[in-house]
């Protein structure tokens, strides 16, 4: 599972890396260990939650600064999972900014025959804590990274532009797992990045070398997309979703793309009809069950089938979008309304924890 990283020059690092094999912990191995002690089979624990809280409109602007929110919403992010970071300190962000700037500059200069005549580094990295973007007390605070740079042929006095941004977050991570981590590990399992692929690679490389973690591509599974269909639809009464749009790809030759757009009000009526009859007692937690999600999707598919005699189950749900955001199977997500951001990030944190290698 050790990714191929150039041999570090520093002997300290070498030593630490060799130790890290035993340190590198993941969600699944942790739960696997737990399952030996308790009767729950590991397999069930490894699945996505089958029930989750109905999204409530969080007045997130009270907790997270509008400046940070502005950077987070309305951007399409490519998701990756990250294994726990070794000796990551939220207090060291200034120093990380400097280190990463230097690292990027060094990577950029590799292979250049002539010394680049730039007195100061052309990349300015800034790390910052996004206060308040958490779901529970066990979650580590989210970190936002921004890379500014001056275009190649720009004059010296031109302002630097934001060329890459990314964030690391953990929203409602499994508390059992988070507590089982040794104290030197910080778990921020979800990385969202937006900017040139080359920079993403360099940033990942630096994290791998500095915090002994590894990254992997995070796809948004069919089930997670279905969850989003339901969770987003559930928000319609509080905040109009405008449309519920789903894209399917059917495996025929040539491939058939189906775009199924449902009127938001009608989607909501269908959604409420498949909700379990909640007891009249005012439940403090409004939970959504996977059964309800399945019934909702089945309803949508059966309406489609009744007209076209085409079975959408034969294909793959590839994209979901509403006014709240969009999510693609390839692991790209866009959040357009910050009020329901926490719910979406919660689901994605869970996906990231599950996807981590053992």
């Amino acid at each position: 599972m050790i990714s191929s990283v150039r041999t570090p020059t520093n002997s300290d690092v070498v030593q630490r890396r060799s130790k890290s094999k035993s340190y590198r912990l993941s969600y699944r191995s942790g739960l696997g260990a737990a399952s030996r002690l308790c009767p729950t089979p590991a397999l069930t624990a490894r699945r996505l939650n089958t029930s989750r809280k109905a999204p409530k409109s969080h007045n997130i602007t009270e907790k997270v600064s509008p400046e940070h929110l502005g950077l987070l919403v309305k951007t399409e992010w490519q998701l990756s999972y990250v294994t726990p970071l070794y000796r990551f300190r939220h207090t060291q962000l200034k120093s990380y900014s400097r280190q990463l700037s230097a690292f990027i500059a060094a990577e950029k200069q590799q292979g250049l025959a002539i010394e680049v005549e730039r007195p100061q580094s052309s990349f300015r990295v800034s790390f910052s804590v996004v206060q308040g973007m958490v779901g529970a007390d066990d979650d580590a605070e989210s970190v936002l990274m921004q890379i500014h740079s001056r275009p190649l042929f720009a004059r010296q006095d031109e302002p630097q532009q934001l060329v890459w941004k990314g964030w690391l977050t953990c929203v409602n991570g499994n508390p059992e797992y988070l507590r089982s981590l040794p104290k030197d590990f910080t778990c921020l399992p979800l990385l969202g990045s937006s900017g040139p692929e080359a920079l993403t690679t360099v940033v990942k490389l630096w994290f791998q070398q500095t915090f002994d973690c590894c990254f992997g591509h995070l796809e948004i599974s069919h089930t997670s997309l279905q969850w989003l269909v339901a969770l987003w639809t559930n928000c319609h009464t509080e905040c109009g979703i405008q449309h519920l749009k789903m894209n399917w790809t059917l495996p025929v030759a040539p491939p058939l793309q189906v775009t199924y757009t449902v009127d938001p009000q009608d989607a909501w009526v269908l959604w409420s009809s498949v909700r379990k009859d909640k007891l009249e007692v005012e439940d403090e937690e409004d939970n959504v069950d996977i059964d309800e999600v399945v019934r909702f999707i089945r309803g949508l598919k059966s309406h489609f089938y009744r007209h076209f005699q085409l079975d959408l189950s034969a294909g793959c749900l590839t994209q979901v979008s509403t006014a709240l955001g969009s999510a693609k199977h390839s692991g790209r997500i866009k959040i357009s309304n910050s009020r329901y951001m926490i719910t979406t990030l919660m689901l994605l944190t869970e996906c990231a924890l599950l996807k981590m290698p053992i």
Partner: protein
Amino acid sequence: MDESTKQLLQRLVRRIPAQMLRATLDKWGRLTAEQRTCMDFTQPKWTLTEKLLDIFEENGWTMKHLTELEMTYIIDNPNQGMWYALQLMDPEDDAHTVELTQLKEQFKSHLSELVRPVSVKIKKHTDEAIWIRIAWGDNFSRPNHLKPTYVVHHLQTPYVFVMSLTSKQKPLLYQALVLSTRYQAIKDANLSGRKLTAIRDVLMRQYQQVFATRYSSPLAEINLPDSNPNIEREEAEIAANRLQMACEAFGDGTLPQLQTAVYKLETKFRDNTNKTMTEHEAPFRCLVKFASTNLLESFRHCACSGIASTPVTPLLSSILLKGRNHFVITDNGPGLASQTQQSQN
């Protein structure tokens, strides 16, 4: 030579792929043998543009000549945008006698009565199709040759195909078409696609037609292997049946290449397992769009492979039968723009 001619020439040369440039210029037929030999097609496009600009200047050619060149190129390469089909309705008694010269004259005069200034160029192509290029202007501006509308009409048919027509220009074109073709009305045929020949073939039924009798005995040709004859036989029967149904709906030949089909559904939600929704009176509103590089081919494959149940629903097969790819489906009779009625049970 004015600025807009220059601009259009530059744009046109840029648009025509390098390997087609010589053929297009030859076909245009304006260049003398000497001028043709002067053109070195191995040179970059901007040098060729300069050369052509000089030739235009020398001969005193204008926009008129240049639009000819553009039409020559577009006629040979019509798949440059979205084509929409229109259908003429209620022919006058003399509609079938309309011929090119008459149409040309009438169309030009009618259109310039409606909008001025307008620049119209009409050309007859070999396959009986009349090509019309319209550059629109308005009271304050000269015709914009950079954004022309293309119209294709086949004489003695009620079909017209248009490319890049804005909603503002639509009524003007409709009126000029109706008057000059001797029909009384025109409507949107609800068919569009990137391939002009494909949508023309769909409307004029120029694809391999389906005859149910051709597939009367699908089992005759299937050789049954010995291994497990009963199972194999049953499976083969089902597969053959699916294939037959698929072919009955879409034929077994090459299909016209359509890219999309759009259905606006406003039908009641019926599901035995969902009482609440079945009792809900209002229709369930949704929009379904199918897209593929060859949509009908994809549908046929769906039916053959069992992803679509057979027999193929009339909703899908009516793309070919009705020659349209835009439908509004309602429960009770035809909807606003629909002639497709669903039989539901």
